[in-house]
Structures are given as structure tokens and as C-alpha cells.
């Protein structure tokens, strides 16, 4: 990998700048109406750099990243599939980029048509009755979903239902979301095969139950086989079922959350529908609901009157949980998801779940025969699976973290490590459908090679990575001696 790059501030010289990009100076008189007491006295200390050195600096920074475009990125529960270039190119057509969010519907029929059709396609592929597109991330969709569950119980005068049940293997956002919605979290265990412990669930249910949040396939990489029974007893207890769509890619085109009995779901469009992750965002966390929760969907929605599309707001959805973003959520991300879904169509959508599952089961089978331990060896993998390195940790003193860091040297992004928390020394591996057999085979070779190193030369693995721009970083120092903004070193 390329060498480290200095900070943009270290390139700065007083008086330098990308002058060609600046508008003409209107002169001091143009600002005469701004009262002195409200004016800034000292200019902000932004870097003063030219255009070429800016381009070079940020291009070099980009080269310090692993990404889907450059590396296999088998990060479990993140669905790092190829982001088709067409989705970006056609979402960035100049008219789409220039459109103001508060512009009239007469100048937005093209956008609104795409969003309306996206709502319809998402309904079809998930088996839900209504879809809202405005949540701006998975966790934002979770928030909308749990807020709708609360609003539903409240609208029925069922005010004491404030408990949200989550399995212990759930993503951290599930309990955090429940808290943000003013709910109390009750965690329940999973059984030895990775399914929800039905007895524990039955014991947790009661008159205070607002609902349960489930990921299916779960974060353990297996399909929840008792889902029918779970839905039945939760509904009988007066609770609702929330589907965390983190793993929707596994079942796309094969099973629909609506058919499993879920009342509300969120979809991570940046996973299943291949919009980019962008180094942490933007995402889009569209929500889908059954008929019971449809009156509570967040606004704005997109409606259709005859041939005209229009925004639906408070007047159309009076019981809505309200607005979640200043405007229409991440419209540009929604366009990318729309383009992706149209490219795939009915046939492509069905192949996604199939080939994601094929790749995961193939990779699992190859790793098992290479001597690695599956966390749930008796189960089929979904679109992802867990390898546990607890034997290597015990016998060789080489941990899952060490394997993860060494994989970087072999040119592979590490799988998700140490999640879910209940499997010791775990790697959660999700190859996605867009990777070829050749890439999966190369990954198995790298894992086998690292295993050999761990046995013969463990120091090589425990001190990895060796080829990255930096070695292992001191996280404790980062948190204790906080250095969160750059300050010029004072001349001594």
C-alpha cells in the first residue's frame, strides 16, 4: 500500500488557494448591512491550498482505503456487494442534482415516479402493505419502526406496552433504538442451534410487551426455523413483530418478511439494494408495514392521483409518527436503489438470494475442509456464516483479531470480528453473490496459509498487519489522550 500522507493543513501556505473556483469579490460595500457585532473577526483557519495539491492529497488518501472496488470485503452482516456504476451515473444526472427539495411537484414528476415505483417494488419483494422511504439509515428505519409500534399501541389506548424483546445476538442498534423510543429492553437467549429460545420468549411475553425485534436469518448466519411459532405467540400476547432487514439479502426473492408474519420491517438499501456505503454513509433505511401500522408511516410518502405523483404529508397521513428528516430523506440514495432494482428485475431479484446463499455455503464447506470450525456446523449457512477460532486462540495463542489483521496483508478485507458477542473468537463471513468462485478460492488459500503461519510462525500473525500504511493502532491511547482535531505544533 502507498506510504502515509501528511495532513492537508501541513500543505497550507498563507495566500495560496484554488482561486479559480472562487466567485468574484463583490467588494466590502456588499456587506455593509451586516452589523459589526454579528461579524466574524478572525477568519476560520481552513487550509490554504491549491487545486492540484488538493486533488493529489485526497486521491492519495483514497489509495489508503480498502474498498469493494479494490478488494474482496466479506464483512458479515454488511452485504458488501458490487455497487454498479450505472446506479451512480444515472442518479447523478444534472436535473436530479439541481432539483430543490421544496421545488413544486410540477418540477419533480420524474423523481416522484422513481420513488413511487420504488415503494411499490419494495412492497412486492417484502410482502408488506405500505412503504416509507424517508429514514436515512438502518438505525433510522429501526427508530421509525419502533416509534410506529408505540404509536399503534397508544392509538388503541394500550398505554402500558413499552417493552421491546430482542435476542441476545441482535445488532446493538436494536436495544439502542428501543431506548430512543422510550421503551424498556428485554433480552432473551438463543438455543444451542441458533434459534430463538421459545420458552424464554414465552416467559418474556406479557401485557407490557410492545413487540419483538428479530433479524432473520439471524446474526448467527442461520434461518430462524421457529418463525411461525414466534409470530403466533407474540401476536397472541398482543405484541407486534419487527424485522431488522440487515440480512434481507439472504432471502431476497425466496421468502418475504410479510409472509413470515412481520408487522414492520426496515430495509438497508445500502446492503440489499447495493447503494454505496461511502465509508460510513449515506445509507437509506426504508420501512415497510402491514395494514395495521400503515396509518403511522413517517412522512413524506409518495402518492399517485391518476397520472400525477405527489407528496403525501400530515393532511394525508394524520396519524403519522411525523417527519424524520428536513426534506425527503436520502433521495439520491433512493434513486440508486431504484436503478439497481430495475436492472435486476423479477428474475435478477430471485437470483440474488440464491447466489448469495450458494457463495456462503461453498465458502463454509471449503473452510471446514481446510480445518476451520463452524460455529453451527450442523446448520445450513444463510448468506453468511460464523467461523470460530477459539481452538486457535487456546492452542496457538492466535486470535480472531490476529487472523483478521493478517488477512489485510493478503489483500482481503477482514470479516466482521467479535460479533455476535456470544460466539467466542468469531469471524462473521458474508461473501455476497457478486463474488466469483476464484475470489472465494483465493480467500480459502489465504486463510489456510495464515493457519500454517499461526502454527509455525505465530509472531508473524500476531504482529500483523505488515504491509498497511500503519501497524496496529493504540486504541487505549486514542481514547485516553484525545487528539480529535489538528493543532499546529507551537514553535519552541
Amino acid at each position, binding site marked *: 500500500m502507498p506510504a502515509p*500522507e501528511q*495532513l*492537508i493543513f501541513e500543505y497550507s501556505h498563507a495566500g495560496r488557494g*484554488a482561486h479559480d*473556483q*472562487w466567485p468574484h469579490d463583490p467588494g466590502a460595500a456588499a456587506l455593509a448591512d*451586516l452589523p459589526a*457585532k454579528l461579524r*466574524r473577526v478572525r477568519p476560520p483557519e*481552513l*487550509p*490554504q*491550498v491549491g487545486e492540484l495539491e*488538493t486533488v493529489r492529497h*485526497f486521491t492519495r488518501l483514497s*489509495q489508503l482505503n480498502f*474498498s469493494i472496488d479494490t478488494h474482496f470485503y466479506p464483512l458479515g452482516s*454488511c452485504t458488501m456487494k458490487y*455497487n454498479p456504476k450505472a446506479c451512480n451515473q444515472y442518479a*447523478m444526472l444534472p*436535473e436530479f442534482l439541481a432539483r*430543490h*427539495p421544496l421545488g*413544486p411537484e410540477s*418540477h*419533480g*414528476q420524474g423523481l416522484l415516479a422513481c420513488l413511487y415505483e420504488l415503494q411499490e417494488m419494495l412492497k412486492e419483494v417484502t410482502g408488506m402493505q405500505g412503504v416509507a422511504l424517508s429514514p436515512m439509515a*438502518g438505525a*433510522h428505519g429501526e427508530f421509525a419502526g419502533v*416509534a410506529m409500534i408505540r404509536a399503534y399501541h397508544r392509538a388503541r389506548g394500550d398505554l402500558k406496552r413499552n417493552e421491546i424483546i430482542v435476542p441476545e445476538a441482535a445488532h*446493538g*442498534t436494536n436495544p439502542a433504538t428501543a431506548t430512543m423510543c422510550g421503551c424498556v*429492553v428485554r433480552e432473551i437467549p438463543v438455543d444451542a442451534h441458533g434459534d430463538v429460545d421459545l420458552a424464554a420468549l414465552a416467559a418474556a411475553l406479557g401485557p407490557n410487551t410492545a413487540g419483538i425485534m428479530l433479524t432473520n436469518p439471524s446474526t448467527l448466519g442461520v434461518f430462524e426455523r421457529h418463525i411461525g411459532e414466534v409470530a403466533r405467540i407474540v401476536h397472541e400476547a398482543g405484541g407486534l413483530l419487527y424485522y431488522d432487514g440487515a440480512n434481507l439479502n439472504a432471502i431476497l426473492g425466496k*421468502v418475504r418478511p410479510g409472509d413470515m408474519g412481520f408487522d414492520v420491517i426496515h430495509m438497508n438499501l445500502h446492503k440489499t439494494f447495493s447503494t454505496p*456505503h461511502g465509508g*460510513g*454513509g449515506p445509507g437509506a433505511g426504508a420501512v415497510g408495514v402491514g395494514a395495521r401500522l400503515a396509518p403511522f408511516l413517517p412522512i413524506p410518502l409518495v402518492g399517485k392521483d391518476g397520472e400525477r405523483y405527489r407528496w403525501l404529508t400530515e393532511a394525508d397521513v394524520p396519524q403519522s409518527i*411525523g*417527519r424524520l*428528516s*428536513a*426534506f425527503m430523506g436520502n*433521495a439520491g440514495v433512493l434513486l440508486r436503489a431504484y436503478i439497481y432494482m*430495475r*436492472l435486476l*428485475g*423479477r*428474475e435478477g*431479484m430471485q437470483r440474488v438470494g440464491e*447466489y448469495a*446463499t450458494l457463495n456462503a455455503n*461453498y465458502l463454509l464447506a471449503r473452510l471446514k475442509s481446510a480445518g476451520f470450525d463452524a460455529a453451527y456446523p450442523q446448520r*445450513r449457512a444463510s448468506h453468511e456464516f460464523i467461523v470460530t477460532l477459539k481452538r486457535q486462540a487456546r492452542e496457538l495463542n492466535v486470535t480472531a483479531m490476529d487472523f483478521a489483521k493478517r488477512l489485510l496483508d493478503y489483500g482481503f*478485507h477482514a470479516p466482521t470480528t467479535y*460479533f455476535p458477542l456470544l460466539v467466542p473468537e468469531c469471524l462473521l463471513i458474508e461473501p455476497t453473490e457478486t463474488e466469483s468462485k476464484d475470489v472465494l478460492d483465493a480467500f480459502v488459500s489465504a486463510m489456510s496459509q495464515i493457519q500454517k503461519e499461526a502454527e509455525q510462525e505465530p509472531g508473524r500473525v500476531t504482529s500483523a498487519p505488515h504491509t*498497511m500504511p500503519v*501497524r*496496529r493502532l493504540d486504541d487505549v491511547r486514542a481514547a485516553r489522550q*484525545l487528539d480529535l*482535531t489538528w493543532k499546529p505544533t507551537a514553535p519552541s
Partner: protein
Amino acid sequence: MAFIPHTEADVAAMLATIGVARIENLFDEIPPDLRVKSLAGLPQELNEMEIGRLMTERARADGAPLTFIGAGAYEHHIPAAVWAITTRGEFYSAYTPYQAEASQGTLQLIYEFQTMIARLTGMEVANASMYDGASATAEAALMAVRANRKSKSARILVPTTLHPHYRKVAVTTAANQGLKFEELPYCTAEGVTPVASLARYDGQDITALVIQQPNFFGCLEDVDALTDWAHAHAILVIAVVNPTSLALLKPPGEWGARGADITVGEGQPLGVPLSSGGPYFGFMATRMDYVRQMPGRIVGRTLDVAGHAGFTLTLQAREQHIRRARATSNICTNQGLLVTAATIYMSLMGPQGLARTAAAAHARARELVAGLTRVPGVHLAFSSPYFHEAVLQLDRPVAPLLRSLASRGILGGLDLSGYFPELGHALLVCATETKTSADIDRYRAQLSELMQAARAA
């Protein structure tokens, strides 16, 4: 097209390795009655040429009108370099930088971003960004409840002059946790929050005061007096600011004697296209004392085992993946790609370029106000100074005029009658450096003609 590279031979070999005959068998743990029967409601696949044609038609249907709407989303010149670099696959298709060694590009960029936001706002520390300005404002209110240990009330004072959508998002986001948002009146002559109106809260337990500068009307609030009043009553100040304006206006860190406590805002003006409302990013900055109460990702600089500097996500003990139900927020996004654009934009602008942009935008807005108020029946609504947008009052309903203007390719501003009925026929207009004198003249001439015709009718 499903972007699946497998050949038939690959599939056969893979199934043999797994030990099943067909892909279908891999789904044998799923109860058969749950299996999808039909996806007939989905359209047939398109190829790239076909989708290109469809999207081009759709984009054309939206048109390319001349836009004078602001109201929280602003059209600015975006240098070509910004998105040419931002859409590089290494930024575009990377994940959250959990594996620090393989993500130094994104991490260093966020560290540079945090530094730039801290300097622009005059605050000590910034996070890696939030979803948008509205959600950042809601999170700031929740953060204030955690940070203000002297207050038990969770009462947040919100001026009516705050963007009305921000107020709604704050209620949606925080009301379930017991926060109470109380509206402060504004002066209908000046368009700002009168400091004297706060006296009725003297002696009450209030957690935080929100101050938007410039406010939703474009007017400039007396931020020093508002901040000092709040601090005199142990109330935290949440500043909501337009980042472009900060090149010219006093940064929140310098408001009053002690400065604002939490600063948030919509980052869109910093190199992000309007794109119908998103993706944008919210920024958030605060005092070092409150850094552990801040939600969202934070990047820190540290050393590697060889003693070289490097960057990593830090203070993660605040976050949902560690603390679960007790986290500061459920957020696990930072709007990384938008932050990438903004950091490149701020580098290209620098202090001078950003000040030039703010000044040019403001000059155009004054030219627009001067032009439109020459039209009979149009006058400026408020007496306060404003920054790059302003409220006009018309002598007749705004909506029909805006419709007629739109049919002539001009989006003339935002009709405020639904938001602020007490202002009568009020129109919020904005111009930035992207508008020319000819554009403004075209708007003035069209409005003049339409109003004359309306008067004659």
C-alpha cells in the same frame, strides 16, 4: 442484470463441494409454506442502455428551472474536483472504518473534517457527522439533556424562527424520551426572537435554548444577548448555523461571553448538490467537556505499535455496538461520502474562498430583494439584517403567482402561508453566487408582469 459472475461450471463445482444437487436444496431449512410463490408485481429486468434511457427521460421531466428557493438547502457552485474524487471507488465503496489499518484514507479525511468544522464553528471538538441538519438538531437536544446536569426538566426552548421542519423532526425524534419543546415567539416586525420575551422563564428549570443563525427567515438573531441570558440561567445553548455564513458571521464558539455549548447545522452548502433533499450531512461540534455526551462517530489520532501516527474510531464506549441499550444514540452512520465532498470543498475554498462565496451570495440576495421590492405590491417583511435570504410580503396570495412563475421556468421561493399564516402573503426568497443580474432581472420582470395582470383581472 444481477451482477452475478458464476458460470454453469462454477455452479456445478460449488454444489459438488457443498454436497447438494441444486441451489434450491440450500433453502431446505426454511418452512416450505413460507417460500415465495410469485414476484409477478416486479417489472422485467432492464439492461444498462435501457435504464440509461429511462432515467434520462425522468430527469428531463424534472426540468432545469431557475431556482430562488433556499429554506435550508442552498445552491452553490461545486468545483468539479469535489465529486470527481468523492466518487472514486476507494471512498464510494468502502465501509465504516472499523478495520483502521485498511481505512486510513477515510479516517484521516474525517479527522481533517472534524478539524475544519471545529475551526469554522469556533468550537473545540466535532464529530464525524450526523444524517442531516434537522436530525443533528434533534440529537443536540437529547445530548443537552445528558450534558446539563443542573437541569432535570428536559424542557428545550425553541424559537418559532427555527426551521419548522427541524422543530418537527426534533419532536418526532425526542418526544418519546420525554423531552418537551416549548416555542418562543418572534417579533413580526423584526423577524427575530426578542431577548426580553425570555424574561418569563427566569427562575424556571430549562435544559437548553436553541438559537438558529441566520434564522429560518434569513434574519440575524441577537446571538450574544440570547446566549448570555441562557448561561445566566444555567441553560445550555444549542446553535444551529449555516456553514457558509460562518465565513462572515461570528462563530458560535464566540457567541456571548462563553460561547454556545453545542453547535449543529446542515452541511449541504459545503459541496453537496441539492438533489431533492439528500443525501446531505449534519455537523455537530461541542466543548471538550461534553465530548463523551456527543452521539455519533468520532475519529482520533493515535500511534501504532511502531510509534507512527495513525487514525482510528475512538470513544466507542458511547456507541450502540458496545453499550447497546445505554448508548448515547442508536446512530451508527456518519454521512462519510458527503463528509468527503465537504472536506474537499472546504480545502478548495479555504478561508478566503468561503468568505468570497458567502459575500457573493449575500450580495446577490440583496440585489434580488432590491429588484423584487421595486415591483408594486412587494415589500420586505422584516427590518432586521438578513443573510442571503429574506421574507417578502406581497399584496396578494403567493401560491398562484409561484405556479405561474414555475410554468415560466422560475421557482420563485417558498410560500410561507402554510407555515406562518400570521405573516399573510409571505414569500421566502434566496439567491446565491450562482445567480446573475440577468437571472434576477428575469425574475423581477416576470413577477411584475404577473402581479400587474392579477391586479388588472
